[in-house]
């Protein structure tokens, strides 16, 4: 699930800007023919991200096995391009640049596709999203009961943003495996994490007695399909046909069971809404969902009503800016320079291209291997926001 949540989260915060400058090309009807001439279809997958994929092939992973079945139906061999899926849109870029033909585990979600508009996603091969994970001793199965105690989330994912908006105390971790570790040590009892990974970790850590609830809020549910280049509609159609056959034969169900895939259902018992792709999707009319709104709030404050939400998320009154300036001196000055003026060897924060939310995400999680600390461990959320507000208040250099 990591590729999903990274991509969904990346989509929420960065993909829009990155995709904006790209053109979607004309439809190319000869994709299948081209692939057949090579005899091979190439999957971009993470080298080490079970239950999705593993280059060690022991086991190969849910995505890889489903891709194998599809390739067999297309009479093609399956090739691999190993990528770092946690790098979000950078991983998808491999697809754009032609390093591979398919990238699995992307949400068939119109807002996601609107942002990644050179992409298209096939019919789902499972219903994924974010599930409630509970430790053995968790006293309640209702997430609301953990509102003040804290719910563990994977940093910068949809639940991170959503629970923040809903006023939950969040405990932030980098990756679902870290959440499970925290459950093991008793740090947390409840989490809202990618369902596929949660199911897998609960399955492989049977001794912990973790529970994954298959009921979750509607907005956390995504139908997951194969991502491919939008112009390659003939390939999309062929994969859809193959998936229908594999589903009908019962093979897909077998694989879902093998990898402990939790089939998420909405809490109210209704059938999950299909979020149709912009074109060539299931044909059902997509109702605007709360996720879509959440993403607009979190990602695209430029438009319309978002302005008021920006001010409520990042109050920019003089007192907040002043506090932000003090905090800047405690945390940021020593690399990014006095008053936001870089001496040249570290990024000039005044030139940061993204919005408040993107800057906040970086302040929070850091880019640790490049020397940018994860301030989440040292500063409160309010403090990190004050820093962002201070930096955003600085005049841009000439």
């Amino acid at each position, binding site marked *: 699930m990591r590729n999903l949540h990274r991509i969904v989260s990346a989509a929420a915060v960065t993909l829009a800007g990155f995709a904006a400058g790209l053109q979607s090309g004309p439809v190319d009807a000869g994709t299948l023919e081209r692939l057949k001439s090579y005899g091979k279809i190439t999957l971009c997958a993470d080298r080490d991200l079970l239950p999705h994929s593993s280059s060690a092939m022991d086991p190969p992973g849910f995505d890889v096995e489903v891709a194998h079945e599809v390739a067999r139906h297309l009479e093609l061999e399956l090739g691999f391009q190993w990528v770092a899926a946690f790098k979000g849109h950078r991983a998808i870029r491999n697809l754009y640049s032609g390093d591979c033909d398919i990238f699995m585990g992307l949400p068939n979600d119109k807002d996601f596709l609107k942002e990644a508009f050179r992409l298209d996603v096939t019919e789902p091969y499972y219903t994924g999203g974010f599930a409630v994970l509970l430790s053995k001793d968790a006293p309640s199965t209702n997430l609301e009961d953990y509102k003040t105690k804290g719910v563990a989330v994977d940093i910068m994912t949809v639940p991170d943003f959503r629970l923040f908006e809903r006023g939950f105390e969040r405990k932030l971790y980098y990756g679902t495996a870290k959440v499970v570790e925290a459950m093991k040590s008793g740090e947390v009892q409840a989490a809202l994490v990618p369902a596929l990974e949660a199911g897998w970790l609960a399955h492989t850590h049977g001794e912990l007695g973790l529970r994954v609830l298959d009921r979750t809020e509607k907005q956390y549910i995504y139908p997951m399909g194969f991502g491919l280049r939008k112009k390659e509609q003939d390939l999309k159609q062929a994969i859809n046909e193959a998936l229908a056959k594999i589903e009908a034969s019962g093979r897909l169900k077998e694989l879902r069971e093998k990898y402990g895939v939790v089939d998420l259902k909405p809490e109210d018992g209704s059938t999950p809404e299909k979020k149709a792709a912009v074109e060539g999707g299931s044909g059902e009319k997509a109702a605007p969902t709360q996720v879509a709104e959440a993403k607009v709030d979190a990602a695209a404050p430029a438009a319309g009503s978002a302005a008021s939400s920006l001010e409520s998320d990042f109050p920019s009154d003089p007192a907040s800016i002043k506090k932000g300036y003090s905090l800047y001196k*405690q945390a940021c*000055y*020593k690399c990014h320079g*006095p008053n936001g003026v870089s001496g040249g060897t570290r990024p000039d924060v005044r030139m940061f291209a993204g919005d408040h939310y993107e800057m906040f995400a970086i302040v929070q999680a850091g880019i640790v291997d490049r*020397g940018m600390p994860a301030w989440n461990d*040292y500063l409160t959320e309010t403090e990190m926001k004050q820093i962002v507000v201070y930096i955003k208040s600085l005049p841009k250099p000439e």
Partner: protein
Amino acid sequence: MKSRWALFASAATTALLVGMAGQALAAEWTAVTDERLQSAEKNADDWLIYGRTYSSLRYSPLKEINTENVSKLKPKFQIALGSIEGQELTPVVNNGIMIVAVSQERIDAIDVKTGERLWRHEIKVPADATQFTCCGKITRGASLYGDKVYFATLDSRLLAIDAKDGKLVWEKTLADYKAGYTLTMAPTIVKGKVMVGFSGGEFGIVGQILALDSETGNEVWKHRTIPQPGEPGYDTWGKDSAKYGGGAAWLTASYDAETNLTFWGTGNPAPWNADMRPGDNLYSNSLIALDADTGKQKWYFQHVPNDAWDWDSMNEALLIDTKIKGKDTKAVIQAHKNGYLYTFDRATGKCLQTVAFSPLDWGKLDENCKMIVKPDKRPGVDKKATFCPSYFGGKGWAHMTYNPENSMVFIPTTDMCVTLHHEETTYKKGTMYLGAGGEIPEPGKGMLTAVDVSNNKVAWAWNNPSPLQSGSAMATGGGLAFVGTFEGDLVALDQKDGKELWKHRNPSGIVGGVISFNAGGKQHIAVVSGYGGAFPLWAGTGVPPHIKNNVNPGATLTVYALD
């Protein structure tokens, strides 16, 4: 086919033989004994100690390269060191083997005759370590003792590495780097004791110097630079401020065998906001003399009581024997951030003379060497003051050099001012403890300033368009003063008049020390270039545009010789 095979075989055999011969001729490690260290003055071939000698003079008596022929000096080889961090090191050379500590990433042993690498030791520093240090992933270098190389890591471990193969012999964790205790200095090693002082004055540490057994890493003594409750001097820290009082001794010490004293400069008190720590704040911003065997403080001199400017006294102490006011004196000289060069009596710490070597506007020193500061030059809470030199100092940490033959000291100098104000702050683990903010009104410039210590007068100053804040200087017996610049120039000046006789542009800016040694009967000069460190991080508008726009990071070792 047969003949071709035979030819191939004989070529292979020849290569093998040549390889073996090469091995036999390759440089071999010679134990770095106390005797060799203590007589380093007389051995011009090596550069065994950070400051070349225990007296930290950075003076090489070699004179093959001199004012007559330096114009013909050429790079003999260059090696890319594979780092984009600032290269603040001074390499050391023992019998033709150079030990190069590449930032906090690796240590290379290089055969200086061939440029071949003999071994490499990879240093593993946690990815988050730079959060807890002011100035990047830097080191000033590795130190040698016996058959080992000693290295202090940013995350406060001491590594003892086998000098013959680069393998780790042992390591010792000395402090919690997440509380701001970091190590950036090249250790001082005297008589089997490895001494290090922690950096972290911007993170509210309590300054500490440790002496560790060179064989086991076990602590022999520990000296706190800041008194704790019940200790003398504690009353100079109002508002319980000694708890996070700073006073980091963050540069390599000098050692005097005759008095058995080590000389350390201590850094700024924390936070920078002086109102939060009423009193003199002993022994921050002081020169302290510690007994090498016990760590006991023999004497101290505090240059800047109740510091409001970040004017550390961390600077190296040079031990010199010369005539002061006409009298033969065993002295110690120290150039200060505040722009003054101080001369002290080595045994007692008595201040003998001072002279301003850098532009300054804050006031002056009186006859007792005490600062008399103009009221408008002292920043306070919500009180801005513009003063020169800035917090980078008239002399930053770039080391000066002294030629005992002519009593001249050559001081890398920064000409830059700052506008600073103070504010209330609270200590918070993992963040800086400053309580100050400011701005540098205009880009800094630099000089190499020559002072004749015997008459206490500035002799000349050579000007550079950027500060000489970080590149250490070296004087030679050939009448030359070398220094590296942010532009990347290694420059050779005439000691007599400061005339520029030669320069060579390195691939990146120079922020470390230049050295000289003898190998294969020839004098060599070496420097590691690689822009970075505190200046580009902290100077902001003080960085000259030609440096900000034109200088890229990237580490290279360049070794020079005459043809």
